[in-house]
């Protein structure tokens, strides 16, 4: 038993040493991808209400940024002064809430959420999205993109219901970075379009800037409290219970 423990320890030590090495060798450049959102709307014969129009307009104004280097990425919405007051915008921005971190070396994915008055770091399981790359392709602005899909389920404690999501992304192998918006990543190429499924909005890249210089961007995983998605659901439930 002791032997196993020692072996385990050794293994851990060596592997972490290795991590350390790769990190220091890195001489990385930063790339910035800007995404926008379109709603996934239902076709219906009733005309759109003013709210829907406002909502779509607000969605159109949301911009998200994905910064990445070789091994790490951060994704979040860009704050804009003029929309702080806009309800539609706030509604729309709920689709892009949180800050997503991906670290390839430690194989960790974190969604940092501040919606409930506290900063919590939700661990997204690395195996959450089991992508199936399809042979469906399309050309986006000259880049050949492949479609990848995955089906995943989640039990919503609030709604007491098993929810099924059909996530879908379009990635281009030409840009060799396994990153994407909203934690939709882990593919052989950058995600230029995609959505989480379940009625959420569809992200699409509008601009890629290479070798950007933004010293303010910190790609390292956040420090602080880490919780699982399950624990986060409990957290949300407690929050809503406490409201009344």
């Amino acid at each position, binding site marked *: 038993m002791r032997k196993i423990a020692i072996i385990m320890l050794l293994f851990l030590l060596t592997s972490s040493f290795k991590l350390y090495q790769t990190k220091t060798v890195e001489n990385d450049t930063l790339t910035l991808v800007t995404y926008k959102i379109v709603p996934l709307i239902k076709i219906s014969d009733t005309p759109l209400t003013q709210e829907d129009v406002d909502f779509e307009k607000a969605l159109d104004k949301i911009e998200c940024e994905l910064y990445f280097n070789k091994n790490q990425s951060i994704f979040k919405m860009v704050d804009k*002064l003029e929309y702080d007051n806009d309800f539609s915008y706030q509604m729309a921005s709920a689709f892009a809430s949180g800050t997503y971190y991906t670290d390839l070396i430690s194989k960790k994915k974190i969604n940092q959420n501040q919606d409930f*008055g506290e900063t919590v770091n939700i661990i997204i399981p690395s195996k959450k999205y089991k992508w199936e790359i399809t042979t469906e392709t399309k050309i986006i602005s000259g880049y050949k993109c492949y479609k990848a899909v995955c089906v995943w389920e989640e039990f919503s404690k609030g709604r007491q219901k098993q929810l099924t999501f059909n996530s879908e992304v379009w990635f281009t192998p030409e840009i060799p970075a396994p990153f994407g918006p909203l934690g939709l990543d882990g593919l052989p190429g950058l995600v230029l379009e995609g959505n989480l499924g379940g*009625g959420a909005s569809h992200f699409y890249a509008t601009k890629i800037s290479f070798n950007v210089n933004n010293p303010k961007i910190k790609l390292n995983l956040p420090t602080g409290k880490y919780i699982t998605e399950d624990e986060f659901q409990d957290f949300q439930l407690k929050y809503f219970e406490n409201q009344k």
Partner: protein
Amino acid sequence: MIKTVLLLLLFLFSLHSYTQTHAITGIVSDTNNKSLESANVIAYPLQEKESLKFAIADNKGRYRLELETGVKYEITVSYIGYVQEVLTVDINSSIITHDFKLEPTGEQLKEIIIKHDFTPIIIKKDTMTFDVKAFANGNERKMKEILEKLPGVEVDKKGNVTVQGKRVTKMLVEGKSFFGGGSKLAVENIPADALDKIEVIDHFNEVGFMKQVSDSEDLAMNVKLKADKKKFVFGDIQAGLGVGIDKSNLIHSGLFYYTPKTNFSFIGDANNIGKSTLTFEDLMRFSGGFSSFISERKPMTNLFSFTNDNTDLIQNKSQFGALNFSYDASSKLSITGYGVFSKLLTANQMDSRNQYLQNSAVTFENKFQKGNNKSVLAIENIKIDYSPNKKEKWYYNFQFQSSNNDAKNTLNSITNTESSLFETISKADNTSFKQYIEWHKEYNEHLTSTFVVNQAYETNTPENHLLSNNPFLTGILPLQKDSLYIIQQIKKIKNNSVDAMFKQYWIINKFNHIYTNVGNNYGSSHLATNEEQVHTNGTKNDFASSGFGNDITYQLNDAYIGLEYKLKIGKWISKPGLYFHWYHLNTFQTPNNSLDKTLLQPQWNSNYEFSQSENIRFEYQLSNSFPEMSHYANRYTLKNYNSVFKGNALLQNEQYHLAYLSYSRTNMYRGILINAMLNFNKKTKTTRNEVVINGINQYTTPVQTDNPDTNWRLNGAIEKKIYRFNLKLNANLTWFNYTQTLNTITTNNNQNSQELGLTFKTVYKKWPDFSIGYTKGFSHFSGLTTSKYRTDVINSDFETTLWKSWIYSFEYEYLKNTNNNNQSNDYDIANTSLRYEKKNNPFTFELSINNLFNIQTKSNYTFSDYIISQQLTYILPRVILFSVSYKL
């Protein structure tokens, strides 16, 4: 153990070998043999139903691609900045290694703009429905009871709604303003079972494209009705009869008709038990008639008597009717309007014991007052909303208002030297027309404009008769001997104003906005007052020769330009602004006077948002204001039986610093709510009344000094949820320091008050609602004299549902006042009711008792610079009322 591992391995191996694969390995590099790390090697099957394979090159450019045998592939290596290379692998290909050497395209890529030829993916919209059903238990009668069950929403006794501590300022039903946006009428009248969804919209702005630049602090609540309530009349009618007051009665109805294009709401109420249908805020909103872009001018008429439950009266008969409508003439044009009619008959009675403090002497007065009042008010308002296109909006609003007041008051004043009986008969007619036009246009995403013109005309003609058995205000009023002293006072006031404003909003970029303002406010008013003694034989004695009677025209013009710069740095939004005002004031009386002032007014707003639930806000403003017309009228005006006022023609503007700091934090996870607000107000140029007091008689005149008035106010509240209880601690502290001249002696006065409260209540759906609160108040005055008062207040509410259909409620208030000499008085008031309401049954029966202990009077202490007063107010007696409601 080992066995299972082996088995597992075997199993995996068999899976692996089930489909036959062959691997291709190689290196991806550029033409200079520099390896292309992370390059993606994609093997695209050229046969249907086969899946795509890929490999990623390692740091040395090495890749290993597993392909299925019997499938034809097209292997592509593309890497940004290089020409892609394609290799076709045939079904029975023997290729096992292949190196890709990519040719650079030669371009140095800095940025790529991606153009999507976009067709949104269409899937079913999963609407997030905020459902009233989820919170209601079905026993609720009115919207108010539903709101109280929503998380973070509170409704107070006056019908004001707050959401997470923030007050709802606009109430909408189906997206349309409900009776001008007042909350009390909505929450107390809309039936609970008509509600489908409730939305809360912060920073509400009616004009969609203005949202991005508006600083609107409006919090709107939009009620969505159930589909089956549309196209039908719904609502309820309540009728009650009882004992207590002569023929206690109550009739109340709220009826609603909603269709997609047209809607009507009617609220009618008649009662004699002191119930009011409106709050003061509702009425202020009704009678506003001003564009929200123009800072509102103070209305001349005081409508306060029409509002708030007033049981501090011995009689209160009220009749109220209001109709609200909205009609969409087309998708571009809609008309909304309301009409309000209110008639009020009240009677009041009050006894007071006053001490008038002079520099050396004290005069005591016992005062007994009784009065009857009849007020009638009518308001009609129409608003037209026209949107020629998505980027342009027009509003036109017209309002007519008419009210009159008839009052009769008797007063017996007994001092150590005399006892006089006064009778006052007052009559006032008020009429006003107000209209405004508003235009908003968005030229492009960087520029938006607003233009507003506001016009108002008001007239007010109060007429007072003061009758007395003894001469009064001797030495000031030139009274001639008569058996009965009758003074007639006639006032005529006219106001006319035109205000215009043009505002441009420039959006420079994501983080910087510039707003420019140009405007002009012009107001012209005329005041004529006349006092005379009417002898019992019919002859008259005009007081004009003794310095009474005013005839003044007042014109104030304020032209201004201003610049505001709004910027966002991280989580910090800041908006500094600078305004130039050119004031021109003319007063026409003898002597005429004119004044020109150029004043600079800086302002600064700032908001730091730590997170959505925690922020700090700071506001500062330097402001100027000119006294109103009556302060300039330089001849005497009779105020009442013991006071005379004289204006000052030489007054200038008052100048003051306003600062505001607030902090709020809500942590729903921990069930904590914290709010704190600090207000600071300092007048550097002050207009204050100088008082000369002789016995009970007072003569006041406004005088301008550089003595500062300083006012601090601190409010704070902490709320914490503990298990199924909510504990709230709140504090209100004020400090007020000013300089007052009384009988030519100037003193520095301090008025401080502290109020600390603790409330405990249950927050659990399955338990009865119970709350109890205790508030301790201290007030302290020091100037020529020193006074200290204490109050103790206990409030409690209880409501429970019994056997599903019986609802019992009880509310209690205890108040105790203690003065300087530790003398105290107290009273307690309780109301209770029992209601029977069965689900799906349109009838509701209710037995209610107001003023259960049948208290006749309320007493309290008040004080000012020179009067200390103990008051006894007579209130409505116990009323037992049985009522029936029928739900449509």
